[in-house]
């Protein structure tokens, strides 16, 4: 075995630093990757050309193309169009609905980013939950897991697999084909869905059938309080002496005092204003409509001397279901709203809709919601006219569960989108054209056929993923080039001694699973592939299989809500971390068993 050189020590220090920064998250993961991209050539561990080779790698170009193709499919509304026939096939049984939607999501996820597929389906799943009266918590986790598992069906399904061939290139190993992983991926999807269908009642939070999608496991101790739906509307009339001998009362005051949101108010002389701004004054002898708990409405009526009407009267027509409504929106991944509070966004002034509550990690926030800094996966309950909600929807950044006919789609382009996807696949399979070239052709085709504009294509690209991939590739090169990977591999092997290929692959699978839980799946892949290839070569096991295990097992991220898909579904599903641990542990174990068994079966290891 080669002795440890200063360069190897330096590389191992850089790996340690990257892992440390991934875990502590002092800076974002993509910034860590850029840090590596810049530091490695400065330390002469890679050449300047090698430092930036990731940006022009097949993996990075492929992922850009996959994202654009995914955005194109999204624009055509194909996904929503798929839901209706899928539901028809599934019928009303919740198990069949879970199977049907999960399979659909997995198939779509195999050709686009997992998080993209998960985000696309979220509004549709919310609608299904409401229509079929199935708690969202029973649907979202199986479907979210299927989106992650679906990424293992093809070589373009998830970032680690896209990256795999680039990482194998320095070893002169035969690259994997687009569908080489398909049998294993399908088995993984089937086993994941199977676990939920067979054991769902034991591992999933069951929720409440009556209030589908509105299960409340809030930390705030107010379970005994709500006597009504928090979105129920009440009309009141202020007394004629309401403004006498007192400070002016504004819409905002009623929200802060009674946790009631004024959704309509009469302004002089007799304008009926829907979703009034917080600084609108509440005047004498006018009608107003509030949204909130009945207890609070009664308290306000009593304290302020208002008359609570039996039902909507003045606003019966203008607040009809055809004109206004309330929707739950989810802060989407990469949303411009994430990291800002509703006050920072000037939300009510800009969009003229009323935010009613924010739901995050088992908690429903009703008080001071304007101060809450929004995070990806937060669920915001909004009330307003459909027109204004539609305008907000167009802004992007929020996943809406709007009636399907309100979504801005280009259904007439669906055929073009499908055609270009098929052309890309035919180029890969039939003509053996390189993945990046074929996929970029598909992406370009979608732009030329106006499925989406070039600006929309640019906007859809997630630069975080791109720089994460491109920035970590030089770290993989340095690990291999300095001999650090070989040294670590030999050291590990000398400790564990001779093991059979199956045991070695299992150990690699477990190692990859643990790595992906604490650092990103891309980071785990880049760091582990050079290592396991060296280990496999030394242990006389197929190095391609060792790399494949890493590429697949880095998708085995179910036990914690750290995976982007899990983080996105946690809020709307009202899941707790313990729910992920319970269901995720089982799915992770089944994943490892099925993966090793299938690799043994398909590749004869």
């Amino acid at each position, binding site marked *: 075995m080669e002795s440890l050189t200063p360069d190897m020590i330096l590389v191992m220090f850089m790996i340690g630093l990257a892992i440390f920064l991934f875990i502590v998250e002092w800076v974002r993961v993509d910034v860590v990757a850029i840090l590596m991209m810049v530091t490695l050539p400065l330390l002469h561990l890679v050449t300047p050309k090698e430092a930036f080779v990731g940006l022009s790698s097949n993996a990075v170009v492929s992922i850009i193309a996959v994202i654009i193709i995914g955005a194109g499919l999204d624009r055509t509304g194909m996904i929503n169009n798929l839901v209706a026939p899928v539901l028809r096939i599934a019928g009303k049984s919740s198990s069949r609905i879970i199977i049907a939607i999960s399979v659909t999501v997995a198939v779509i996820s195999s050709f686009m980013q997992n998080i993209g597929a998960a985000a696309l389906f979220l509004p549709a799943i919310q609608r299904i939950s409401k229509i079929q009266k199935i708690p969202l918590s029973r649907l979202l986790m199986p479907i979210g897991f299927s989106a992650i598992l679906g990424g293992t069906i093809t070589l373009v399904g998830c970032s680690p697999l896209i990256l795999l061939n680039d990482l194998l290139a320095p070893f002169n190993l035969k690259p994997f084909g687009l569908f080489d992983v398909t049998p294993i991926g399908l088995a993984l999807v089937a086993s994941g869905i199977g676990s939920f269908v067979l054991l769902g009642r034991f591992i999933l939070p069951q929720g409440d059938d009556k209030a589908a999608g509105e299960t409340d496991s809030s930390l705030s101790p*107010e379970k005994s*309080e709500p006597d009504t739906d928090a979105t129920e509307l009440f009309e009141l009339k202020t007394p004629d002496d309401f403004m006498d001998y007192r*400070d002016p009362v504004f819409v905002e005051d009623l929200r*802060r005092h009674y*946790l009631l949101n004024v959704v309509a108010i009469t302004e002089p002389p007799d304008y009926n204003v829907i979703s009034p701004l917080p600084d609108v004054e509440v005047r004498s002898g006018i009608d107003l409509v509030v949204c909130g708990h009945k207890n609070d409405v009664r308290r306000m009526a009593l304290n302020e001397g208002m008359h609570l009407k039996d039902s909507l009267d003045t606003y019966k027509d203008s607040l009809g279901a055809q004109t206004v409504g309330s929707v739950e929106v989810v802060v989407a991944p990469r949303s411009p709203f994430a990291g800002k509070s509703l006050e920072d966004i000037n939300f009510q002034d800009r969009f003229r809709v009323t935010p009613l509550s924010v739901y995050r990690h088992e*908690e429903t*926030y009703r008080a001071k919601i304007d101060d809450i800094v929004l995070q990806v996966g937060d669920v915001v309950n909004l009330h307003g006219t459909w027109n204004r909600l539609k305008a907000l929807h167009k802004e992007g950044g929020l996943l809406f569960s709007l009636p399907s006919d309100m979504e801005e789609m280009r259904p007439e382009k669906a055929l073009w989108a499908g055609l270009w996807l098929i052309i890309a696949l035919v180029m890969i399979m039939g003509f053996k054209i390189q993945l990046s070239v074929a996929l970029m052709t598909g992406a370009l085709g979608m732009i030329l056929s106006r499925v989406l504009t070039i600006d929309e294509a640019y906007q859809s690209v997630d630069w975080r993923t791109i720089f994460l991939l491109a920035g970590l590739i030089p770290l993989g090169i340095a690990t291999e080039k300095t001999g650090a990977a070989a040294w670590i591999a030999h050291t590990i092997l000398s400790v564990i001694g001779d093991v059979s290929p199956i045991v070695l692959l299992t150990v690699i699978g477990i190692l990859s699973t643990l790595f992906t839980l604490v650092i990103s799946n891309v980071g785990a892949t880049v760091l582990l592939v050079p290592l396991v290839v060296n280990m496999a070569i030394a242990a006389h096991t197929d190095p391609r299989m060792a790399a494949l295990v890493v590429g697949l097992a880095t998708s085995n991220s179910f036990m914690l809500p750290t995976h982007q898909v899990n983080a996105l579904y946690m809020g709307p599903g009202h899941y707790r971390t313990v729910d992920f641990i319970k269901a995720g542990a089982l799915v992770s174990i089944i994943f490892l068993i099925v993966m090793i068994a299938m690799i043994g079966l398909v590749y004869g290891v």
Partner: protein
Amino acid sequence: MAVITISRGAFSLGKIVAEKVAERLHYDVISREILLDASTRFNVPEIKLEKAIHDAPGILERYRHSKQSYVAYIRSALVERIINDNVVYNGLAGHLLIKGLPHVLKVRITANIESRVAIEMERNQIPAQEARILIQEDDKQRLKWTHALYDHDPRDASLYDLCIFIDKLSVDNAVDFICRAAESEAFRATDKNKQKIKDLATACRVKATLVDEFPNIAVTCEYGNVLVYISKDQATGKLIKKLNTIRDNMNDIYHLETHTGVPVPTDAV
């Protein structure tokens, strides 16, 4: 009418000023009584409370958080006392303990060091040098205390509405200024201000109940709607039980909500 806090260094004549102001305005003067109240309500020896509000936290105390608990108890006792207005508080750190209330007139009284030394010498029958060292040590402790708990410098004039240096100005001049200021419109106890003080009392009660087990929580209250700000690791079943008990037992709480990982507002206790 108003609530007046008089902050001062040792032997700075603040006590005499407070008593004269209270006499002229027919207010109550409170000082050490709040320590007794807190001691009785929260079952903590008075000496510990006195040390907590005077001495800066030691290294171990920074980790034990006992000082935060004691200060929360004292604050709660103080706010309960001022809830009916017309009060001059002459004890330590009043301007910090009841921050955020608009009708509290915050006064800082300082005196010439030579006159302070002279008063100390006369009261304790000690030489000038010793008196000077004792006064400087006392000032240092208060500086460290305010730094450690509130990250403020007690000498910072922006913490007060009125700073009076008793040297050329007499005690009577100071009393005149304070009384005129207290009677101005800005310090009138309006309905809104009264509600704010009631809310602060509620927030302080909630904080005092939780602080022993959850030292880093922060609490606000507005119109009886209590928000408890906690970090992610504090979101435990134990906290839920405690919050349920609080909600059931405190009649003036209409709504109680926990906000996890949300920036704590500056007016939180």
